């Protein structure tokens, strides 16, 4: 083969390999780090997977927040118009976490309890996480047709 052509071929092969490696890396990293969002009613309906990390979001049920006496473990309930999900978490809750306010928890469902590794609340007075807002709006609209 002509040396120049050989060089070009080598370059193309390298580029193809590089792009494939990068794509493979993106796809693998993506598939293991994508967290689906479920509103409580979907969790209650069994649509959410067990032992897989996902996010659940809704309002924090008034009166449901209870702190352990000796540790930083805390339990609370996230609810929407149709269902409730019990959440357990260990650590410090965000400043704007409050009863009857929107919150989104990331974690896994084990034995019917959602064990959260992270809890997010809205960050200012006028803001609701879009997923929670959408789910609420959807349910409100469905409700009006029933």
């Amino acid at each position: 083969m002509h040396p120049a052509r050989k060089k070009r071929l080598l370059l193309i092969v390298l580029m193809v390999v590089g792009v494939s490696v990068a794509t493979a890396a993106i796809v693998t990293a993506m598939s293991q780090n994508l967290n689906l969002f479920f509103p409580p009613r979907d969790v209650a309906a069994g649509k959410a997977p067990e032992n897989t990390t996902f996010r659940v979001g809704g309002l924090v049920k008034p009166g449901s927040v209870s702190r352990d006496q000796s540790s930083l473990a805390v339990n609370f309930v996230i609810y929407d118009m149709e269902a409730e999900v019990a959440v357990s978490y260990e650590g410090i809750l965000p400043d704007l976490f409050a009863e009857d306010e929107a919150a989104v928890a990331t974690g896994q469902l084990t034995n019917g309890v959602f064990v959260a590794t992270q809890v997010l609340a809205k960050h200012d007075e006028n803001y609701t996480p879009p997923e929670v807002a959408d789910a609420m709006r959807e349910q409100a609209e469905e409700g009006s047709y029933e």
Partner: protein
Amino acid sequence: MAAEIGLLTLWLAFGASISLALFPALGVKLQNPSLMLLGNWFAALVFALLSLSVAALGAAFLADDFSVAYVANHSNTLLPWYYKLTAVWGSHEGSILFQVWILSCWLLALSLGGRSIELAFKAKVFSVLGLVTLALIAFIVFTSSPFERLLPFAPNEGSDLNPLLQDFGMIIHPPLLYVGYVGTAVAFAFAMASLIERRDDDKWAQWAQPWALVGMVFLSVGITIGSWWAYAELGWGGWWFWDPVENASLMPWLVSVALVHSLSVNVQRGIFRSWTVLLAISAFSLSLLGTFLVRSGVITSVHAFATDPERGMFILWILLLVVGGSLFTFALRAPTQAVQRKYGLLSREFFLLLNNLFLVVITFTVLIGTLWPLIADALNWGKISVGAQYFNWVALPIFALTVLTAPMAPFLNWKKTQSNRLTSRIIVPLALALVLALVIGFSGGYHWQGYLVWFSGLAIILASASVPWYSRSKQRGFKSIRATVWGMTFAHAGLGVCVVGVGMTSLESVERDVRMGAGEPVAIGDVSFTVERFYRLDGPNYAAEAADVIVNEGSSVTRLTAEKRRYLASGQIMTEAAVDAGFTRDVYVAMGEQLDNGDWAMRLQVKPFMRWVWYGGGLVAFGALLSAFGRRSRRRETMEVGE
């Protein structure tokens, strides 16, 4: 009254920016130099009008004019005066006005400086920037005017500025970042002008270089301070979250870094022309994309403003016009005659190519991760979020590759380098880095990753530092070294400092959430924390629970005060962490929540070499600044010699 003046001057600025887009272009068409020169005047006029407009909004804040909706929603009579002023850019409407005003500062700078630029070329740059300004002002007046009145029912009291924004970091972080964001428009305008002129020389790259560098300086400083602010104000000690809005500022930065490197190849060797143009277009497009992500509220983020689809659509249209228009121009007018210059694998060209490639790939992976939730939502694949791990897994390895090429590049010559010469020079800093890494690693008792972090960080720092050492002349010593070389040295060394900071805090930080009562000591490693007392503390517009914490570390004793504030007007709760900043470690104390028996849940952290992340960012910015202005003074020198 102030609001009306503000709105009026904003509309006048709208008109002035139409003239800015029109007259210089007309001058080019008619080959009339005096029309082209009008660009300078209209640029200054746009600046003057927008300055009045911003000042009017500031005056409305200072006068507590709560009949103005924006003031009523983001201020309060109890708010200290400096926060009243910074509230101007504290939320959507005001900050977009502020952003356009900063664009007009760039316009002013361009009209005062840039004297070496050919008149007709500058006219085209002004026309392009006039269009950009026009689009952004249209966005304000049609979708988000900060001057709307709440008449006839004006409230007596405002609802206060978001407490998160009542912080020194917030006073300086957004303006700096905006300067950088908007700065990408300037490099973009240069690139577009070069396409329009079908330039086949590299002069435009030479003209664009300092502007692109200064833009990058501000992006670097803005991101660095943003990270520091997140650490101090909302991060619970975290300093980077791969939050969509952080990514939105990181992407233009990555591309800007690629751009300044590509520009230098362009200037010195006349190659990478089309590539440089594409980078300039991408940097600006990514800035607009960032603006879209922040303003539309489509993504869950700590930075997101309340959702408004109309605003999102407007920016999306601007973005489509910019990307579509510029790529179309590129397709029609890109330099057709590619310059062929041979260079080997061990050449500066090749390494700069690698650097560009890596940076663009990182940008691409970050872009995919950031936009994926939007794409999935649009295609009805469910509502998803991309975890921070994705970015760590994909972007960090490529970043490590970039870091590896950085210390090598300055030792390489253009075209090709003798490998034995390269080895003989680079071996000294590498050996020194190895020895130092072993000593530091051993004395710190680190794992092998710690050794690796120190070795790579020190290798970059020492290799960069040895460049001026090797290239100093016998007669004049270090004085013979050009400012641009110093600039590169500082910027690359900053990268090394950053590597140490990021690596050490990620590997060696200790973070503990504990239950603490007064007088009960808690130890982390050889640092011991004792709460002296919990008490009430009142500020001008908040009431706080505070804790005095005594930190014992060997022989040194520090007293820190952490606070949990409740802002009176909004009822919002804010954690004010107490940080004892140090050169080799940060000690961080934050109050979580009060528990039943009066104890508090507290977060205690010891973070080794935390500051180095930000020192590194600062050095990068300083280096780029030296490089930008060094170029200018050198040109002046040669001019003097020529005369």
